[in-house]
């Protein structure tokens, strides 16, 4: 009724209160106590001249009423319309969604998550009945707490979170229900929280539990007994291995309830078995250390897969295999260096190669020819037969680089072995011919398999060896070529080459093949003819170099004599050899990932450097990526390189495992392809000790006065009780001011005006 006076819906409010805002002010009371009687007395005496007693009383009444109104204004009365409701208490139901919940029971082979779903289904009526008296809210709990909608619960509940941490979960639960009445919690889990050690609750967790208003009832999914699992718990392996050198991987295996049996641990690469070891499992022994040895046969980062067989009834199948990556690098660069005769050039090169700690050098010098008269018997000589048969058949592939330095192959090498060198290069080997009087045509290599693999063509008629002294002249086009990089800064590099000592001697009659790169040449003075001095090219999967002089030692000893340093000679040879054997920094397509390994849901960044054949950046070039996920189909992505030849490919993997990446570019002479890969790993530490822990679940319930149930036996949720104290809440409040409005001030003004009129009419001023 009153609500309607103030245009309010009476159904929305069930209580009205008057509030006096100024009633608590002692100054106001003092003021009123002094002023009201004094004023009334003053008024009464001022009405002496009015003889009519009723009129006098009326005026006094008017004054009293006006004073009352004034006092009311000073006390600031307000009408408060309220709607008071009884609050529902809360119940939180926490469902464990950590990975250990995917463990299957034995022998039923039902995952713990499935057990939980079935338990929810069986107890649906009870859970529904709770909603009458309580507000029931569902959460997924692992080491985080995420609200869940009851309707979508069966679909949303997946055992995916990598860790369980009840202490964190209950701490978050308390924060969430701060100021709310949480009168009970139901924790449905396997209790596999390894942060709670040795059957005792941590002090932090105990503190959280003791601060809970209502009991925590626990429901155990899974059993401690009957857990059967074989797993690779841990792998210890060096991230780097050496090419063609044994590498080792140490695996820690766990076998729970597997009985006595023999199993094999297998190491694979791209489906090919590299190593395997038989392990005798014994009842009562759960941990095994196994070492496997393998030999990386390909340079670069490669993925390896360690697998165990999956047995029937195993709780977790995923932990029976693990991926790891090893980047294989050369421990040493194996060089076969064959010298046609001892010379200063070969002496200084041998010293440079032998002094390089990264090099394994096998040298042969032809110390005598058939025409030399040694004037001694063989037993008085230190000479050994040249093992051409062994070198160019059995052992050729074990070398990274073969150098023929001023070497005429006949009569030391059978001509048929030259084809072996050609095949070796096609398969990825490197070959370098150094000039001199016994090289190129003068070594009878024209029209031989060696000419086919070299980047230079030899004139049919031997033209000999020119003994001019000249300065090396670098081709401007190839100033960024890694084989010529004595310094990183191009200008400094150019200046260094200009300061290099003169060379003397160059093989003539050579012309660069069409796709070969002439990095340096000699312009014959007074002619238009130039002779290729340093020529390189890619041949098949390998690389070959023709250096048409035997005077590169001038860069060393003679340079020192000129007051310079010989270190650029060493740098030159290091760079030339690095390019020849195709070291990563000499590739025109280079790829790297921003991380060694990725976690689930992490974005992968592939950084690509795209260079032209002359090693200048290739901008705006289309690059094709083929990404093959562990299970899915190949994904094709095309992207263009930027202005600086760089390209960043961002990729979001959708599953865990090894992703192989094939990167391709189109070139005039064919495709250029490089391969890489990355591993997206899941955190499977939950599986390391995934047995259910009923003791922990009981302890949580006991600590909070809750009950413990085990799914599968007496698991009715109706056994749980929750306190339900009455709690109220002012749901809706509306306050209307009774003093701060126009009609009150109007009434006061009216009263004073009436008082004034009557006084005037009564002859008062």
């Amino acid at each position, binding site marked *: 009724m009153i609500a309607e006076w103030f245009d309010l819906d009476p159904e929305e409010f069930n209580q009205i209160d008057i509030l006096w805002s100024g009633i608590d002010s002692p100054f106001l009371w003092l003021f009123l106590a002094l002023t009201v009687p004094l004023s009334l007395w003053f008024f009464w005496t001022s009405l002496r001249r009015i003889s009519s007693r009723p009129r006098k009383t009326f005026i006094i009444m008017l004054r009293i009423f006006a004073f009352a109104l004034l006092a009311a204004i000073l006390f600031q009365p307000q009408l408060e319309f309220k709607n008071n409701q009884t609050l529902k208490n809360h119940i939180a139901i926490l469902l464990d969604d950590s990975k250990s919940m995917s463990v299957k029971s034995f022998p039923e082979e039902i995952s713990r998550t499935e057990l939980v779903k079935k338990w929810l289904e069986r107890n649906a009526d009870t859970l529904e009945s709770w909603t009458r008296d309580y507000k029931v809210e569902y959460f997924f709990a692992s080491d985080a707490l995420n609200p869940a909608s009851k309707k979508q619960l069966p679909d949303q509940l997946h055992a995916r979170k990598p860790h369980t941490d009840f202490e964190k979960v209950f701490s978050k639960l308390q924060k969430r229900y701060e100021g709310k009445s949480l009168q009970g919690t139901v924790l449905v889990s396997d209790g596999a929280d390894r942060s709670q050690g040795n059957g005792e609750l941590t002090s932090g967790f105990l503190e959280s539990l003791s601060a809970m208003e209502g009991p925590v009832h626990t429901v155990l999914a899974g059993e401690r007994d009957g857990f059967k699992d074989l797993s690779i718990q841990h792998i210890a392996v060096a991230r780097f291995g050496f090419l063609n050198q044994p590498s080792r991987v140490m695996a820690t295996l766990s076998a729970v309830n597997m009985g006595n049996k023999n199993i094999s641990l297998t190491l694979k690469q791209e489906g090919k078995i590299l190593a395997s070891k038989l392990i005798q499992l014994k009842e009562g022994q759960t941990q095994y250390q196994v070492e496997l040895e393998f030999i990386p046969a390909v340079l670069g980062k490669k993925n390896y897969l360690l697998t165990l067989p999956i047995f029937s009834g195993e709780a977790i199948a995923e932990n029976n295999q693990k991926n790891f990556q090893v980047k294989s690098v050369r421990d040493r660069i194996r060089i076969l260096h064959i010298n046609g005769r*001892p010379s200063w050039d070969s002496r200084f090169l041998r010293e440079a190669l032998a002094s390089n700690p990264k090099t394994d050098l096998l040298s042969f010098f032809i110390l005598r020819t058939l025409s030399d008269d040694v004037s001694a018997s063989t037993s008085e000589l230190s000479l050994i037969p040249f093992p051409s048969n062994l070198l160019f058949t059995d052992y050729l592939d074990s070398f990274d680089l073969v150098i023929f330095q001023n070497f005429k192959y006949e009569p030391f090498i059978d001509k048929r072995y030259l084809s072996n060198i050609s095949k070796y290069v096609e398969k990825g080997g490197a070959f370098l011919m150094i000039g001199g009087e016994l090289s190129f045509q003068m070594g009878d290599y024209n029209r031989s398999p060696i000419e086919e693999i070299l980047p230079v063509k030899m004139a049919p008629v031997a033209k000999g060896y020119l003994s001019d002294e000249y300065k090396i002249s670098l081709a401007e086009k190839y100033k960024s070529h890694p084989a010529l990089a004595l310094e990183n800064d191009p200008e400094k590099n150019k200046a260094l080459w200009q300061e290099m000592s003169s060379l003397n001697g160059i093989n003539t009659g050579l012309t660069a093949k069409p796709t070969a790169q002439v990095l340096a040449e000699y312009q014959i003075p007074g002619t238009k003819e130039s002779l290729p001095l340093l020529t390189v090219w890619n041949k098949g999967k390998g690389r070959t170099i023709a250096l048409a002089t035997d005077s590169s030692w001038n860069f060393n000893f*003679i340079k020192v004599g000129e007051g310079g340093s010989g270190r650029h000679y060493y740098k030159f040879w290091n760079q030339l050899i690095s390019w020849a054997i195709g070291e990563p920094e000499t590739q025109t397509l280079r790829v790297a990932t921003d991380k060694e390994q990725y976690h689930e849901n992490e974005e992968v960044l592939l950084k690509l450097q795209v260079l032209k054949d002359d090693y200048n950046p290739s901008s705006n070039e289309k690059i094709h990526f083929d990404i093959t996920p562990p299970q899915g189909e190949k994904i094709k992505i095309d992207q263009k390189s930027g202005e600086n030849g760089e390209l960043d490919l961002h990729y979001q993997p959708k599953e865990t495992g090894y992703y192989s990446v094939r990167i391709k570019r189109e070139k005039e002479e064919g495709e250029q392809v490089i391969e890489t890969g990355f591993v997206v790993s899941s955190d499977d530490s939950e599986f390391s000790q995934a047995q259910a822990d009923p003791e922990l679940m009981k302890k949580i319930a006991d600590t909070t006065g809750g009950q413990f149930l085990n799914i599968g036996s007496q698991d009715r949720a109706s056994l749980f009780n929750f306190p339900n104290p009455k709690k109220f809440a002012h749901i809706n409040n509306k306050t209307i001011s009774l003093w701060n409005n126009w009609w009150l001030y109007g009434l006061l003004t009216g009263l004073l005006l009436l008082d004034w009129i009557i006084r005037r009419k009564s002859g008062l001023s």
Partner: protein
Amino acid sequence: MRYCLQFLIFFSLLHFGPSPVWADPLASRFVLPQLKYSGGSFKPLNGALEGLLMQIARRTSIEIRREPIELELTDPSLHRYPFLYMGGDSKFEPLSEEEIKALRHFLNYGGFLLIDDNSREKKSEFDVSVRRMAERLFPQTPIKPLARDHSIYRSFYLINRVTGRTAHKPFLEEISVKGRTVLVYSSNDLGGAWARNKLGGWNYDMIAGGEVERQESIRLGINIAMYALTLDYKKDMVHLPIILERLRRYRLQ
């Protein structure tokens, strides 16, 4: 007739085709410069180096340049000749500081010096001068006998005995820098054993022994040159088994 024509065409091509340059690539060839120094006689023997070079050319695959060269340590072209021969039979003036510095630099960075006492005396003044020079050259590295398993004794010939025209010391002496022998000193007048005249005869009679010792001196000279050009090549593992077996047999003989 047809064959005759083909022969003529081939012959004409040889003469009128692009002119080939058959210049001698001296830079790659082995040269034996005689070191010139002040005081004493820097070249007391005739035909010593020519004799050794001829033997090197005849017996090994090393290509040599026969013309004699005489070189001072201050010569700007010193570093074009990484092998130096220093002979003498008498006291010589101490090298200047500049010369010592140049020689040290030369040896440290890859050069090789063979010193040969041609005096035929056991305790010669040349020997005193040489040791004084060596002390100034490498004060921290005294000259010492060459180890019996040094590569010089197996770089071409297997050598068990050290001799020369004389046989004052049954060993060579050396100075090594960073594992590389940079200076070899013979007290036995190797040059006297090598020296030949233009007619092919030996210039000097052997004082200790006869032709066998001369041959051994030549072999030692060749081995020293071979070592300078190949360093420790003969200590590579690929050679060791064969060399050790031959040495064993050789010593048994």
